[in-house]
């Protein structure tokens, strides 16, 4: 095997790695700072990728750059001393790194030099900018003897060997029977030069990847029986007796990933985006047993291109690859986003268990990962520094897509319809937020967010606050905001302030109060109708009228108990108290209904707290509801938002009686063996 590798390396060295002549976009969509022409060959038996590249990197800043920094992500899986393993305890989702020798992964830089110039390999130095872990080898620094001047380019050639880990955190190989490889974060990847310094963080367990845009050419060699997919357009495929060589090309993306398996079922489908009539070629690579999801994936793909086009903007690429990993790797390789390549999956190893339980996991995962093509891949915010802009916007898009998909009748429930109970994605995110509303701040840097709040800060609270904003602005305005943000910041690196600017510019109002309270602080809202009372007003005695024809009113003061009938001669005083138990303010409305069918909508700026509303009318108030349109889904308790004088409790019996039935059924099942 080693001989083979050496032979291949010599081949690589002699072959010139060239940038392809193919063009996808007439005009570059991005600054194209980091461009790679790569050659790689997969050796499935040893789980090794032997590869080389030529990197063409451009200094887009006004700085003179004296050193380079690269990520060596795969070294996160090298040993237990890496920051990634230390932080994660060797776990990622349900995956766990197992101790066998071949399960660990690493990357070795075999040679590196400035093309036709300085040798760099000997200058490589491991650094650990984020922590004091000197054993972490996921970032390297190379001090150049000749600095890179503003606007100048540098071409670097590099040979490297990537030993893939057993996939447990979304890159690597699977069990032999599945024969599946997901080759991600597999090459020395240059950091981002930003604000006069390298932004090149170590590989942490919680965060993902930040990179510059560029053009990628990949020539991938695999044993012939393997089917290869990549986040790029397939340009050419050549076969020899035993090998297949795939050539891929992609423009204006931030990463390169590929997958190979001898077990894939490959399906291609053209999806038309209705607004422009443009077609995207979708390639499905389905692992054994996952073909049953084919039709669901088709429906998802068709919907998502159109939804996202309507809500955010055009998907510019001609391709998307959807990989459904092997059943056993659902949690380890599934649910990963790369530009124009996503991996899906469903929670359960059995394809049918989803249907049985009524879960919509394939939809949840696919919408989520595709949304990352917008938030992270195109709008390339820094997940490490502002995780909510990436995962939060993505999860909000996922939530919105699920709601629309349900409205379109394609699924039942958001996350699922579990034995008849609609488990909406909003309920899920509230479940994450409600127990810990004060535990952390959304707009915080990733490493500053308490671990027990990370999920809430990066995913769930952003869904709630962006949905609240959408409800408050209306769908149309929200779409304008999102389009503006997307158009301004696609292929660039925005920050939260840039999104706020988009909101303020589109609405013509100052929304800083909103972001100050819900992104940059842990303030909460909890509206409550604390009381609603109505009683008959005692008739006023004496003479009434201005003219000589006065009328005399006698004492008629016996109060009638609780009659909701309206008597023309009777008047009622209704008093409603509304309060906000939280410390954030939010302008809202209150809907009051009266027994005679009248209703009143009151505005409340939310600042005077609590607030009282009093009515003298011929009819009693029977119900009061604060935020009746359910705009503020950030509200910590929605159940206290409405109060009625005469509550209809049958709705509770409907479910508790069903619960009784469930208990009986469970008991009967339990005694099956008796």
């Amino acid at each position, binding site marked *: 095997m080693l001989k083979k590798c050496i032979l291949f390396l010599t081949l690589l060295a002699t072959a010139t790695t060239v940038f392809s002549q193919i063009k996808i976009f007439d005009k570059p969509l991005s600054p194209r700072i980091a461009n790679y022409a790569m050659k790689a060959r997969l050796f499935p038996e040893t789980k090794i990728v032997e590869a080389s590249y030529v990197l063409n990197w451009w200094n887009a800043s006004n700085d003179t750059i004296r050193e380079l920094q690269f990520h060596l992500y795969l070294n996160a899986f090298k040993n237990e001393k890496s920051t990634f393993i230390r932080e994660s305890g060797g776990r990622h989702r349900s995956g766990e790194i197992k101790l066998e020798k071949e399960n660990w992964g690493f990357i070795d830089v075999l040679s590196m030099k400035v093309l036709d110039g300085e040798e760099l390999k000997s200058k490589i130095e491991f650094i650990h900018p984020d922590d004091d872990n000197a054993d972490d080898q996921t970032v390297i620094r190379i001090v150049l003897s000749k600095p890179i001047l503003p606007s100048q380019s540098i071409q670097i050639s590099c040979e490297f060997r990537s030993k893939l880990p057993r996939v447990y955190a979304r890159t690597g190989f699977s069990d032999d029977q599945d024969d599946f490889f997901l080759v991600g974060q597999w090459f020395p990847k240059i950091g981002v030069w930003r604000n006069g310094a390298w932004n090149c963080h170590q590989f942490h367990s919680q965060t993902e990847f930040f990179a510059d845009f560029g053009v990628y050419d990949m020539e991938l060699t695999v044993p012939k029986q393997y089917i290869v997919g990549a986040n790029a357009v397939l340009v050419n495929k050549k076969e020899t007796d035993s090998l297949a060589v795939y050539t891929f090309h992609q423009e204006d993306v931030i990463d390169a990933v590929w997958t190979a398996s001898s077990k894939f079922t490959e399906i291609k489908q053209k999806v038309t985006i209705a607004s422009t009539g443009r077609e995207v070629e979708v390639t499905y690579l389905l692992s054994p047993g996952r073909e049953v999801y084919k039709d669901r994936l088709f429906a998802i793909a068709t919907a998502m291109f159109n939804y996202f086009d309507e809500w955010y903007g055009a998907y510019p690429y001609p391709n998307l690859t959807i990989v459904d990993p092997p059943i056993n790797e659902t949690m380890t390789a599934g649910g990963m986003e790369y530009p124009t390549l996503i991996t899906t999956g469903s929670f359960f190893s059995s394809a049918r268990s989803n249907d049985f339980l009524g879960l919509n996991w394939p939809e949840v995962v696919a919408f989520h990962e595709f949304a990352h093509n917008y938030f992270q891949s195109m709008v390339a915010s820094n997940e490490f520094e502002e995780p909510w802009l990436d995962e939060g916007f993505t999860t909000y898009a996922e939530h919105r897509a699920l709601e629309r998909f349900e409205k379109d009748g394609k699924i039942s429930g958001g996350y699922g319809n579990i034995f008849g109970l609609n488990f909406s994605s909003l309920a899920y995110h509230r479940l994450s937020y409600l127990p810990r509303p004060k535990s952390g701040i959304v707009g915080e840097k990733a490493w500053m967010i308490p671990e027990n709040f990370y999920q809430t800060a990066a995913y769930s609270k952003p869904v709630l606050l962006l949905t609240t904003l959408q409800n408050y602005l209306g769908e149309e305005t929200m779409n304008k905001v999102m389009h503006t943000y997307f158009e301004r910041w696609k292929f660039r690196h925005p920050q939260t302030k840039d999104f706020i600017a988009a909101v303020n510019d589109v609405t013509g109002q100052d929304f800083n109060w909103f972001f100050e309270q819900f992104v940059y602080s842990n303030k909460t809202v909890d509206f409550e109708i604390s009381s609603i009372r109505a009683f008959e007003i005692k008739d006023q005695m004496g003479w009434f009228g201005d003219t000589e024809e006065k009328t005399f009113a006698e004492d008629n003061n016996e109060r009638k108990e609780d009659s909701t009938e309206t008597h023309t001669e009777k008047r009622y005083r209704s008093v409603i108290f509304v309060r906000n138990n939280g410390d954030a303010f939010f302008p809202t409305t209150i809907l009051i209904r009266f027994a005679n069918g009248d209703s009143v909508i009151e505005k409340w700026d939310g600042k005077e707290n609590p607030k009282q509303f009093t009515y003298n009318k011929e009819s009693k108030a029977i119900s009061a509801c604060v935020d009746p349109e359910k705009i503020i889904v950030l509200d910590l308790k929605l159940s206290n938002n409405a109060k*009625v004088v005469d509550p209809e409790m049958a709705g509770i019996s*409907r479910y508790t009686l069903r619960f009784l039935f469930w208990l*009986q059924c469970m*008991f009967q099942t339990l005694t099956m063996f008796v």
Partner: protein
Amino acid sequence: MIFSIFARSLRTTLQQKKMMSLLWAISFLFAFPGFWITHRTLNSYFGGRQVAGEWLHQFNLSYLLEMINDLPSLIPATNALFFGSALLFLVVTIFLTGGIVGKLIQAVSGDSSNGEGFAPSFFSLSGKFFFRILRVFLWTTLLSLVSFAFMMIGGYAGLITAALIAVWIMTSDITKIRLVSDDSGKVTKTYFSSFIWVMKNIPSVALVYLLNFFLLVMTFALYKFLDNALIANGILKIFLMVVIHQMFVFFRGAIRIQMFTSAILLWHAKLKTMASVASNPSENLLDEQTQPA
């Protein structure tokens, strides 16, 4: 032969109205505390709120989650209540099984006129066989748990688990019938000889159980159809929903009885013998006398 046994057993089962009612009543009784506490908690938590009115039209999980979030002791308390009542229910069911099998054997042999009322003989049979049936239950549970090992392998090995569990259920039913009809105390020996008997007669035993299983599936399908068709958004409709639910529970209990009845008939038919029931079941339910079927 199997189909006539099935038809005969159905007729016999349908005559066991007291037994069916009893099974339904205990399921109701034991589930009731869990229901009542949940019902009271929800009513007091959402009292005066509009939630219940909204739920009448559409369930909103968010409200329930708020309550659970607010009352952190609710879930552990409900769990304790549930497991407590489930355990009691299990014990009571094991207790009643002796009576069920004994009375069914009497009914099948056509001897139900033994002078006593239903209750005294039923409960004395229950008491007499309680510990034996408990041991049968423990065997079945143990063997079923062991059978789950196949499920760990994954793939189609799960089917082996299902098949094995079915075999243990059949074996345990035959064992109970033999223990009661022979008034034998040799639980373990009877269990394993019943297992051999089941395996020897697997086509007919499996067919009888499949027919019963089919009956259960049909009952479930009918329940599911009615339950789906009914949107319980008013008092009357909620009442109808409860009727549908309770009918299903009732018939599910009845099918359990039917499984015993058909197994008894099958056992007797295979032996070509039929036990004669002693006149005083509390003393000696079945003697060793046998007569041709």
